[in-house]
């Protein structure tokens, strides 16, 4: 069931109660299954992972993922199964491609330009001229400092 799309200013991912009982041969498979369905998008919901959705399609896709993992095939195979049918839209972790280069590289670029900015600031700031004090002023400053610390 697709819930009506609600748009609010504040947090409002849609409700869900996807509950199925799944049996696994071993816990490693279960962990892989749970991680996978948490990173795959339910295609008919507003913004929910397969794990969180109670839409029929999400249930079917969970079944598919479950079968693939339970039969011992790899996560890549499960992902390929879904992207072949639904495209990259189904992945919450976008694959690294030419169109997503800026997405994955962006944060690093921003950080680097920030560090360059800091570096320039430091160079400018540390070269701001010290105010030259006369001998007498220097002594007064020292005296004041001593008084402050004492």
């Amino acid at each position, binding site marked *: 069931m697709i819930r009506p799309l609600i748009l609010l200013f504040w947090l409002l*991912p849609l409700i869900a109660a996807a509950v*199925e009982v799944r049996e696994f041969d071993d816990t490693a498979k279960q962990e892989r299954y749970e991680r996978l369905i948490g990173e795959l998008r339910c295609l008919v919901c507003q913004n929910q992972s397969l794990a969180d959705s109670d839409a029929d399609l999400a249930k079917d896709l969970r079944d598919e993922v479950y079968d693939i993992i339970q039969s011992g095939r790899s996560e890549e195979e499960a992902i390929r199964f879904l992207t072949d049918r639904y495209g*990259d839209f189904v992945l919450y972790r976008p694959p690294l491609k030419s169109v997503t280069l800026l997405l994955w590289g962006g944060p690093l670029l*921003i950080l680097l330009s920030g560090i360059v900015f800091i570096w320039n600031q430091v160079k400018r700031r540390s070269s701001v001229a010290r105010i030259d004090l006369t001998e007498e002023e220097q002594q007064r400053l020292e005296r004041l400092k001593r008084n402050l610390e004492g």
Partner: protein
Amino acid sequence: MMAELGHLALIMALLVALLQAVFPLLGASQGVPVWMAVGRAAGKAQFLLLAISFTCLVASFVNHDFSVRYVAEHSNSALPLYYRISATWGAHEGSMLLWALIMGLWTFAVTWFSRGLSEEFLARVLGVMGLISVGILLFILLTSNPFERLMPSPVDGNDLNPLLQDFGMTIHPPMLYMGYVGLSVAFSFAIAALLGGSLDSAWARWSRPWTLVAWSFLTFGIVMGSWWAYYELGWGGWWFWDPVENASFMPWLVATALIHSLAATEKRGAFKAWTVLLAIFAFSLSLLGTFLVRSGVLTSVHAFASDPKRGLFILMLLAIVVGGSLLLYALRAPTIRDTARYTLLSKENLLLLNNVLLVTAAASILLGTLYPLVLDALKLGKISVGSPYFASVFGPLMTPVFLLAGIAPMFAWREADLGRLFWRIRWIALGSLTLGVATTALFWNLKDIKTLAGLSTAFWLAGSAAFSLWNRVRLRGSAWAGLRSQSLSVYGMTLAHLGIAVFLTGVVLSGGYSEEKVVRLTPGESVALADYAIVLKGVTEVQGPNYVAREGDFRVLRKGRETAELKPQKRIYQVQRNTMTEAAIDPGLTRDLYVALGEPLDQGAWTVRAYYKPFIRWIWLGGLLMMAGGACAAADRRYRIASVARETVISGDLAERGA
């Protein structure tokens, strides 16, 4: 009648906001005191009118006036009084009116608490705030009027979305808006300072308490939202990296950066230009959040294109605010004289680094939120950006922030002696690492590097916060004198940094050691979770005011002894026929037990979802500590000294005249 009165008050508020914008700004630039004085009166009048207007909308809800379209769409005669009141801000039109009301409230607060400001500066601040109000009020009146009538009026209303019929949802929006809109004060102070050419440390001192208060509200709002999502959405998560959440998180990150750079500007006169820019960005991101969520652009670019009226209006408003303020900044920035001198290893520079990291984090979220929209609009394909992306970007950026937060408060301004500093903190650093290793090995798993690193960092934050306070305290004769002599700002900072430690502990432990079980239970059967057993006794039918529910009766057993009763519900709300899962939680400081009913199966069996969530409360507890820290710092005496001094002068004058 009520609706018309509210509508009229809203129109009058717009006119008054216009007065508040035009006269003080003109007066300040021409030097006409009478015009400047308009700001204060208009600000108060505007708030009064908005309060009337808002009360009228609340009254329409309370009185079941379904001839008002907004009430008909979001209320119902069976809706309890409490939720009829909170339904006022339950959807678009009403929440925008709440936005305007809170804008009025902040304006009122500025007129009230700013007696220490010069008339000219106050006039400019109120003028800028008036301009923002004009924009929002025009938006409401032209595109989202909550008082619109519906003819013929329906017999009953469509009810409030059941998700919002909840305490958390009642206070989350007002708190979040207090934060969002509060950032407009910092923004207005920055613009006023740019206009008047008075970017000095006095300006920073005036801005700081306002920014701190707004930040505290924003923190509280986000914490409330996260808590609500945890218990109401029924799958035990606390943050989803949903675009709607990101919209509130971006301004929070930038505001956090702003608080820190304001400190450097006030104390040392450093980063003036940068601080102004942050104030502009923080508020712009609040507006951007409004645009993202209100325009429908998040659902799909096409939904936005098919009904662009609201979206375009906010986009234009955003363009004017961002474009106008950046233009002003570009014109004035060359005249900003920044004479502060500092070196690579100084508190100034660490604060700048903190700023760069926080702003990079905010920019990355912005990138991740907008990227799919842009790709889609350019027809380059549809992608999704979700929690895996944000988590992998966020971890590396936040780790240095946490490490810095421990050490930066102990750095000296201007130039720090690194050797001496490291010597002083050697025990804290060693101690937190040892404690991290020891606790991880004792209670969890030493091979788990994430927990080890997270806990050590948390110990580091807590230890260094306490140590930095101790370093200040011990300068005095006795501990008591030392503690008393510290300003509230210092306590605020210590609390907030302790808050990060608590938050981090919660994130790491609940993330690493949660257990989830989805099982089929018939009455009498139980599910084991950590060292608890949860027994299903039975499922009964319960009648609520506007829903029917099936309620599970669960008992929590620990070592055979019953420790709690849990009653999760599966509700069907009668008007919208929505099914809602109400989870039941047995809360605790070290763990939550969380049970939700799934679907009924044959023979009275149910699927049941049960979680064991260690230390998850610490996430919100940490958030609350940060909020308390912000509030504490805002209450610092030195922000009030200016106004007190002025009052003494005035009363002194009066006394002389009286004599």
